[in-house]
């Protein structure tokens, strides 16, 4: 199976372990990823909030490049997934936007016909490959590992295509089929604070604290995410949360591709495990010959 791959900015920087593990896992699952050459910003966050039309234009450039490549465009970042999808929908449905953006693309000798399907990697793994085909490739079952899969908002809302917007289950199903115990985690699609940590840290911290305590109270040893921003919010601010709320959280948060890689028997380096701010050593070492 072959897909065009759009990494996005986070996966080149703060979420490098995500990118590393995405590539390793896809290789192990025989998914061929062709990175879109000369891709640019997807237009997310501040751009699309402030200058929507410009955001559509720069986002469409990526879609136009992907359209030339022919295959479905896959991304692992839910923000890219949302913005690319939104652009796609608006380019198809809003004539005025299509007209202006097409003019802008034409300047760069590009055009976009709206034929690209934007997909999230989780969708590809669970629905295109399927649990039945993944299971024979599993070298290390995750029996006994208690995890809280955390989806955040953008993977299923507002332009999600493959899971329930309010109560997504894809990661739950994936990891329970690999033997992990998925704990009750009712806040799995609730806000991680997003960019609030930079603009309104007080509310941001309280949202993070809610998520951490819900996961921990329900017995999770590990949080598994599919989003770079969620991951950093959940992991990087545990100290601040502890200070503010007099708690003692120390719960690692990793990407779903990293945990899937563990199950596929990939070595730590190929999954960039060990680069966490909250070490996952205690939780994951049992799968690497260590004791529990």
């Amino acid at each position, binding site marked *: 199976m072959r897909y065009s791959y759009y990494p996005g900015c986070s996966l080149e920087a703060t979420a490098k372990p995500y990118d590393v593990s995405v590539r390793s896992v896809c290789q192990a699952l025989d998914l061929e990823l062709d990175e879109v050459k000369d891709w640019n910003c997807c237009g997310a966050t501040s751009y699309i909030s402030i200058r929507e039309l410009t955001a559509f234009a720069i986002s469409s450039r990526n879609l136009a490049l992907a359209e030339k490549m022919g295959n479905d465009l896959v991304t692992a970042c839910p923000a890219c997934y949302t913005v690319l999808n939104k652009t796609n929908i608006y380019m198809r449905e809003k004539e005025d936007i299509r007209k202006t953006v097409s003019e802008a693309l034409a300047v760069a000798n590009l055009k976009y016909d709206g034929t690209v399907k934007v997909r999230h990697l989780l969708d590809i793994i669970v629905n295109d490959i399927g649990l039945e085909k993944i299971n024979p490739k599993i070298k290390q079952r995750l029996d006994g590992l208690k995890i809280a899969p955390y989806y955040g908002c953008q993977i299923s809302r507002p332009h999600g295509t493959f899971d329930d917007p309010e109560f997504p289950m894809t990661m739950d199903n994936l990891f329970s089929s690999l033997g992990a115990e998925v704990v009750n985690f009712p*806040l799995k699609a609730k806000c991680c604070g997003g960019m609030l940590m930079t603009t309104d840290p007080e509310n941001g911290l309280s949202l993070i604290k809610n998520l951490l305590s819900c996961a921990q109270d329900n017995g999770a040893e590990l949080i598994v995410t599919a989003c770079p921003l969620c991951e950093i919010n959940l992991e990087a601010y545990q100290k601040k949360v502890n200070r503010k709320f007099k708690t003692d959280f120390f719960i690692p948060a990793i990407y779903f591709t990293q945990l899937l890689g563990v199950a596929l028997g990939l070595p730590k380096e190929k999954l960039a495990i060990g680069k966490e701010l909250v070490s996952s050593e205690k939780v994951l070492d049992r799968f690497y010959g260590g004791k529990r």
Partner: protein
Amino acid sequence: MSDLKNNTHKIGVYVCDCGSNIAGMVDVPEVVKFASTLPNVAIAREHKYMCSDPGQDTIKKDIKELGLTRVVVSSCSPLMHEPTFRNAVQDAGLNQYLFQMANIREQCSWVTEDRIKATEKAKKLVAAAVERVILHEPLKLKEVAVNPNVLVVGGGIAGIEAALQIANSGKKVYLVEKSPSIGGHMAQLDKTFPTLDCSACILTPKMVQVGRHPNIELMSYSEVTDVSGFVGNFKVKVKKKSKFVEQEKCKACGDCEKECPVERDDEYEMKMKKRKAIYRYFPQAVPNTFLIDKTERPPCKITCPIEQDASGYTALIAQKKYQQAIDLVRKKNPLPIVCSRVCYHPCETACRRGDLDEPISICHLKRFLVDWEMEKPEERYKKPEIKNEREEKVAIIGSGPAGLACAYDLRLLGYQPTIFEELDVVGGMLHTGIPEYRLPKKLLKKEIDRMKDLGIKIKTNTKIGKNFTLGNLKKQGFDAVFIATGAHKGLKMKIPGEELAGVFDGVEFLREVSLGKKMEVGKRVAVIGGGNTAVDVARTVWRLGADEVNIVYRRTIKEMPAAAHEIEETQKEGIKITYLTAPLEIIQKNGKVSGIKCIKMKLGEPDSSGRRRPVPVEGSEHEIKSDMVIAAVSQAPDLSFMDPSLQLKVSKWETLETDPLTMVTNQEGVFAGGDLVTGPATVVEALACGKRAAISIDRYLNNLPLDSKPIIEAGLGRKSKDDIPKIDVKEKYKDKPRKPRMQIPGLSIKERAGNFKEVELSIPEKLALEEASRCLQCGPCVECFECVRVCEAKAVNHSLADQTVELDVGAVVIATGFDTYDPVLAPQYGYKKYDNVLTSMEFERLSHAGGVTGGRILLKNGKEPESVAILHCIGSRDENANEYCSRVCCMYSLKFAHLVKEKTPAKVYELYIDMRSFGKGYEEFYKRLMHEGVLFVRGKGAEITDVVENEEEKGKLIVKCEDTLLGFVRRIPVDMVILSTGLQPQKDVAEVTRLFTIQRSRDGFFLEKHPKLAPVATATDGVFLAGACQGPKDIPDSVAQGAGAAANVIAMIDKGVVSIEPIVSYIDPEKCAGCKLCLTLCPYNAIEFNQEKKVSQVQEALCKGCGTCVASCPSGVPIQYGFRDEQILAEIEGALESETLAVNK
């Protein structure tokens, strides 16, 4: 047609201003001026309101005075006023179809923004109409008589109202209701808004009226399966599902219900209570009778060759009714002790519990029962009664299970059977083939003694062909013969060395052992074969002291025909099984067996039996050392008794040929069964043969024709997997706690060695009770027949079948009601996840005096709630569910708030988007609730969660919402949440749409003919709508619509005839090629095929004039009156060439 065009015509054109509706955008005088220039136009006029009386009078006057031959009115949509103007034309003496309407309002003035363009378009439309109307031909309305009977589908309040009104006018009404009682949703409600009168109190009198009305034939638990015909003359098929209780006899005393062991969720009580498998829908049900739920029939019983009541006795064991249980077993099974030990129990393979964890140990539960009976036989064994003694004698040849079963059943019917047995022991293979450690001989003797005690004569040491012949049996006064001599001849392996000393035949070996002959066994014994005989032989040899026993089988364990648990026991006893190995030759040393030359096999393609065929592996020959070889490859009947003069037909497998169900041979009065007919099979299959033969012999002796029907009705037909209703067991019983089946107590391996003691031991009562209670009771009726036992009125009849009746009716009222939105689809509301989140219908039953709490509003933990939130618009006004407003939720939510306030001290929150209290007395009710202190929060509930943020929220359900009046997000902690779920179409709405060829609107409900002016009619003449099947409605509106539909129906019937629109299609039989394409495409099933002439014909009464056949016919044969090709082309030409036309005048 073309000559019509050449004739000179006088056309009147009338252009309507429609107040400012048309004149506001179209320059009407300009259009009139233009029209008057068109060819054949005699007069063109403008009028402010053409539809008014003066407008119509103008047309009439012009027709009379100017001699107009055609009329065009250019105004609104023909849907509005075509009938008006047609009538005016007809009144003036012109045929009403010589008229055409040009729509310059909906299609012109209303949708055009430019006055000049609008005027131009209006001109074109007028010119088109003028060109067309010239080609119009006079058409005649047809009339057909109306059948005065009426069908009402659905027995909710709308259907009840319609049925009563129509019946009161003296017409016959058939009221068909899907559920066991009429009443619909209204029968489930507690109180009704805004008057708060009890729903049942106002509904039940009407239900009773329906039940008693001489003009209403009520068909509950019934469904319409087919509709044909047309307005005034419908033919309807109704399937009346069997209730298994005779309605006229049932006194509704409820004795049966008390005895029934099966509990199921009560749908009427919204699954908050349990009901029995025999139940009454609710206490005030009409008709007030019980019925049995047999929707999913137990597979254990259906699969059993003799339909042993497995689910029935299992349920009775669970209730400790052991006597009833063993009586039930004995009812069908003449050899229960034998079966409880040796049956291969296909019931367990079919058991639905097997899909969940492990099947019920059905066979061993029977063993528990027979052992229980044998503890105190004098008290517990009930000797069957023989009611009618008869003189006829029946000879039964062979005392195996088939012969015994046949003799037993015949004896119970009063006949005098005599069994002839070759050996001096009775039981056939039961004695000589099944080893003692599986079936102790003394138990077999017990069964046979009981048979003798019943009066069955058994003559041993009497061999057919030797001591007597079939021929002289008749002379001895036997009226019929049943031959069941079994299959006792062991087949050879057909390899060299088989004749050597030390090589035995398996069947023979077992027979010798069972007859008490001392058999010497070797040290290393090889048994060839993989069936039950091979396994029995190996285990017997092991008990006789062989050092090493080795079963040699050519396929793998998966293909072994022996019973799985027997194979398991064999392996436990240390017996080796060598798979994928076939013997080639027996090797000798000094004339004695020293080993077997074998070859390795591998599995190839599947053979006809579906098992993979073994193929030899080249060069893999090897030797298995052994000093004794026993061949147990297969058995066949020994036909040496057969005298060729008998002329009995033998099959190519050396078995006797009979009819598979009646068991009759090719000789009159001679029947046969068991292994002799089937080839080597099982005990229970032999029993089935014997029982079938008994039925046939009874019919034969009563001079009735032999027929397989009574055999199938007795449950003795051939079974197939398709007979078992398919259900998703894992889904349906997902909440059932998993539990493994019981472990059967047995002798240890040490205790078994060197003796023939019975291996399996009796089942302790506690174990049996636990096992029996694992049964899913999936029937749900388990057919224990306790209801039959206790019913004094003798009303319960488990053999009542479904019935289909055909009705002739003139009109149909559809009142199939609604379904409620399932909030499981919106997981954010935590329905089914949190105990105290209820739907509105669940709250109705909670609050109802007859409900689960007797009308007290309680939480699942039995406490009263301190706070309750009612969330409006769940599944309504929601793009992710249904976009429309369900119209009743605001009001019933207010009613709920009132009930909670009345019955508890709880705080009540109403979370609403907009309050919609539009009906009579509704707004006043809203105001009253505000005064009662209900807290109204404007904002839709967003989510229910139990993730708390502070102490105050602990143990509560948190309702999250945006309070749009206060302007911020709130978290409201409450104890109970009621989801005001919306109304949506019934699940089978598509099926009903198809049956009655009606349409649905975008919301999925049935579509009325006109949203304002014809709200109860449909596009299909003679089919009317009432109640919420047309769209969400409260009770007053449903009743009004029911009455409205009734009025429509009565008016139609009282007129006696209906007119049929002549704009229909016609197929010229001379031109039709009979390809039938139009038949498949006609959406109204209006075309039928004339088999004689091989052409398609239009049934004019059914045709709606849609034109599909006209467009689809490959040879363009069908024409449609009023829409002929020439007429349409003329219309197009008129529109395109309007200017040329005008100039040319």
